[in-house]
């Protein structure tokens, strides 16, 4: 059986890639994908823990995460489309009207 630590390691790597993607990429779509990656990295870790603990709580949590992620994508993409329509760009650095 594959040890849990391997899953955690993979989850950590995926999460880090996601963080770096959010921080470094400028295209809003890619940023979204990176966020999804982070969420799924967390899901992976949760599932791994669930298997080791032989419990269901973590698996239930995963379903919540998937639901929230779906909702987030729906709202987020809608926002993106709205921004693209007004600004003609998907570059997050171009959208800084909330500057204080």
């Amino acid at each position, binding site marked *: 059986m594959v040890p849990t630590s391997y899953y955690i390691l993979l989850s950590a790597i995926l999460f880090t890639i996601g963080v770096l993607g959010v921080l470094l990429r400028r295209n809003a779509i890619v940023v979204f994908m990176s966020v999804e990656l982070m969420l799924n990295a967390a899901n992976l870790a949760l599932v791994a823990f669930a298997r080791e603990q032989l419990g269901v709580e973590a698996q239930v949590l995963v379903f919540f995460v998937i639901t929230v992620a779906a909702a987030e994508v729906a709202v987020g993409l809608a926002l993106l489309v709205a921004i693209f329509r007004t600004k003609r760009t998907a570059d997050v650095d171009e959208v*800084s009207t909330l500057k204080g």
Partner: protein
Amino acid sequence: MELLIWLIPLLPFIGFLLNVFVIRREREAGLVASGVVVAAFVVTLIAVAMLAGMPPEERRIVSTAWEWINTGSFRVPFAIMFDPLTAVMALLITGVGALIHIYSIGYMHGDPRVVRYFAYLNLFVTMMLFLVMANNLLLLFLGWEGVGLCSFLLIGFWFERKSAGEAAVKAFIVNRIGDAAFILAMLAVFTYFGTLNFYGDGEGGQIGFLERVSDIAGLRIGPDWQPIFVSTAISFLLLIGATGKSAQFPLFVWLPDAMAGPTPVSALIHAATMVTGGVYLMARTEALFTASFTTQGWVAWIGAVTALLAGTAAMAQWDIKRVLAYSTVSQLGFMVAACGMGAYVAAIFHLLTHGIFKALLFLAAGSVIHGTHDTQDMRRMGGLKDAMPITFRTYVIGALALAGIVPLAGFWSKDEILAHAISHGHTPIFIILFLTSLLTAFYMGRQVALVFFGTQRDPGYHPHESPAIMTVPLIVLAVGAVIGGVINLPVLHWLTDWLEPVLHEKAGEFNIWLALIATIGAVGTGYLGWWVYTTNAARIKIGGKDPAYRYSGDIWEGMEEAWYLDRLYQRTVVAGFEQLANFLARVFDPQGVDGLVMGIGRFFGGLANGVRALQTGYVRTYALVFTVGVLLVLGVMLWFAR
């Protein structure tokens, strides 16, 4: 009887209301205004007659109209009274007042605001009557400030002139300084006596504070290292109040300027009645003053110093009215000094005779001004005795009375003050006052010579005698100035006896030697003044210097400027206050106080601006900060979880 005494102040008040709200025509205004004052005079006469019919010790009528102020323990009734002292004052006010009202009909003829003038004059008489008839200090203060207001209005009557406005404001504010002390005195009286009433109302109520001055005998206040008697504190504050109203040193500077008003006003307010308010106040509260030896000394010296200062200033004036103004200040000094020496009857006697002959002099001066087409500079006059015979004769009578020539009114009253000074051992005061009386004769001689003798120096006008409506009051007053002394002749001393229930004084000895010397001195210096200015008449040029200037030099200039006191105030007190006020208004308030307030606002504004720079608007920056924050929190947690 109570109704009768209310009529005395109410009649002129009705005249005031009529003149304000109903009357619009000059003729009616003059008739109504004079009519009500004459009526008030008649009522006063009746009241005096009724008072004389009572036994001497019961000669006081008190009448309360309503409770004026009533809060906590502080109760003041709106109450007036009528007693021998009030009676003589009321007679002077309504009598001389009536003559001046009548005279004004002629003097003010043709002025566009004559209705208003008579309204003010009526209001003045009302307030002056309240001043002398009040049965408590607060109502007296109402009259006191009321006459100050009328003085303000009448000095500023010709408000188009800049000097008139300035003089009016100056008079009011200098008086206010004295009034501030008056207010403090009232508070002290109320604190120590629990009432502001002079006398009880005779109905078993509270008795007034003048009847129980002994309550505060020996009582002291103030810090331990310098305690002062309560009686001294109260009477000294009242004295400051009196120096304001009665134009005494150091607050006399407003009176000469007050001559900017119409001349009948100067006669009524700034010679015969209002300025004697301070003397009346001291006579009324004589019990408080005599309780304080210290204050009495101050009173006597202030009076004497004022008499001398103003007497010298009167010698060097060119303006016909300013001579009389300084002379008034000087004579008021005589009265105040008399009060300070305890000669209250003599002070009141001099107040009455002075009221008559000074009103005469002012009205005659008004007649001169009227007849010379508003000339006031005596250098432009000269030789008017032929053109204005009645004015000339009445003026000379007034001048002789003022100079104290036997047997005119001024002689008897002034002599009584001087005699009192000698017999009670006030030698320095006596010397000053005697000297001043010589000066008085000198400047009156000078004035008569400058105005009526020689030749007319300014040919630009044709002098004419004034109409009968003006000369008749002059003649009446001249008769008064001649025989006025009768009321308190040394052998008869009617006035002393009449005032005995109020002032508790016995008639003094008549000093024949003093009378003789004083008369000879007055005649001599008076003649000297006349002689100097008739023989040197050729040297007097329009706008030129006085002949005496050659001999005295800068001293004469000092006299002309009344020893620079006014200028001193302008440069120190007035300028100092203006600078302070400007500093507070232009620098301290906007930059200091408001600067602090705005500083607090600006501090938070700046803080917010600093924090604002953190909000770049770049989503990725926020994400980075967020990540770093998470890492930090995790790090800290790990660190503590060790």
